[in-house]
């Protein structure tokens, strides 16, 4: 991995899942070249099954079976990955789940109670994940990622299947944390309004073997992002829909 001036450079010439049983080999991604600026909020959209999660797994380093390369600005860049499902350990409490990624002498351990408070989980700190609501599990999963103060934050549809007010609340939390401590974020979503509201740059993946078909800078100032009219207009400009 070479040093680069951007936060992150991704080059996936091709990614193919091998044939299994009756399914033939599936070439999912093709010719993806992407440079991401530090502290940018990049939103990745595209139809279901086009390969967004696959791309995120490659960037996270969970999948190294592809043709290409991923380069980070600094080799010890801290990474966090908010998975599409919360992926908490059911046999550890909410608080233990958030503490586990931290070493015993990590100073960030002291910040966990404040983080729990911030995501509204102070009361549920000692509860087991399966005994709290899905929204609370998602918030715990967000807290686990945020507490690391990552340099690169990968998020795979983190707010999907939540009711509107909860999703809205969590979006606010994300914006809040991002403002307090700007990070490079890669955020996957199907929700076009969400994409426009959060992102500084939007990438659209599409195609049988998916590649980047659109790469757009979001032209909204941060105070415009809470204005539904301006978000709708920008959404119409980028996605040509209404």
């Amino acid at each position: 991995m070479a040093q680069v001036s951007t936060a992150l450079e991704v080059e996936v010439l091709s990614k193919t899942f091998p044939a299994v049983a009756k399914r033939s080999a599936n070439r999912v991604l093709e010719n993806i070249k992407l440079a991401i600026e530090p502290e940018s909020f990049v939103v990745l959209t595209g139809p279901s099954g086009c390969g967004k999660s696959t791309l995120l797994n490659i960037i996270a380093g969970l999948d190294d079976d592809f043709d290409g390369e991923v380069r980070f600005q600094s080799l010890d860049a801290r990474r966090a990955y908010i998975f599409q499902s919360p992926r908490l350990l059911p046999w550890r409490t909410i608080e233990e789940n958030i503490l586990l990624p931290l070493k015993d002498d990590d100073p960030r351990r002291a910040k966990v109670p404040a983080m729990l408070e911030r995501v509204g989980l102070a009361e549920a700190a000692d509860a087991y994940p399966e005994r709290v609501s899905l929204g609370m599990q998602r918030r715990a999963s967000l807290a686990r990622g945020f507490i690391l103060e990552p340099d690169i934050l990968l998020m795979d549809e983190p707010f999907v299947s939540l009711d509107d007010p909860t999703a809205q609340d969590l979006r606010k939390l994300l914006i809040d944390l991002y403002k307090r401590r700007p990070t490079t974020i890669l955020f996957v979503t199907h929700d076009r309004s969400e994409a426009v509201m959060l992102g500084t740059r939007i990438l659209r993946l599409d195609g049988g073997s998916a590649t980047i078909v659109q790469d757009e800078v979001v032209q909204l100032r941060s105070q415009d992002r809470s204005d539904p009219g301006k978000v709708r207009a920008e959404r119409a400009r980028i996605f040509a829909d209404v």
Partner: protein
Amino acid sequence: MLETLANKRAVWSLGSLIVLLIFWHVAAELLQHRHLPTPVAVFETFLREVRSGDLIYHVWVTLIRVVISFIVAMLIGSAIGLVMGRMETVNRFFDSWLIFFLNLPALVIIVLCYVWFGLNDMAAIIAVAINKIPNVAVTVREGARALSRDLTEMAEIYSFGRTKTLRHVILPQMAPFFAAAARTGLSLIWKIVLVVELFGLSAGVGVRINEAYHLFDVPMILAYAIAFIVVVQLIEMFVLQPIEARVNRWRR
């Protein structure tokens, strides 16, 4: 809520036991055969054996053997199961060995161990452990195969490292499989230990039952059998169930 449930379970088992005792008593009274003693006769024999100290001594000797072979079988069987469940090549190679040992009659293993290692405790414990290890390995292997890939990836992303991953991610997922292996293990092992004792040792419940068999002393046989069933039940209630409750406290 849990309290009342536990109470209900105790009431049910107590009730069904009493019904069983009544059936036994009625049958014994009707048949009046000296090979079918009444529960009262068995209980009298039991008390006599307790007072003479024989019962406590033999049960204790057998219990030590059960515990040691249980621990040995669980440790070795779990290690084999974990490795086979996680490494496909190892599994392919050793699978036929496992099937071989699973189907080897207990008696053959016992006799061979005595022939090879002599009539001693060591041979007895090895024989019992070899009988149980394949079962533990098969159960634990199922657990190791079913490990969640999602959680393993999570542990990798959040740099848990080896020890943390084992302790917080792998072993908790394996717990139900260890519990299943332990539960069936305990009941299987104490049955085999009695046979092993009968064949080649000079103390233990198996030896005592063998002596009673030569005298056709049925009350004695039943007194020892019941004493051991009670001991195993106590282990179940005061060791296995509390551990299980603790391990499962996170479940909905």
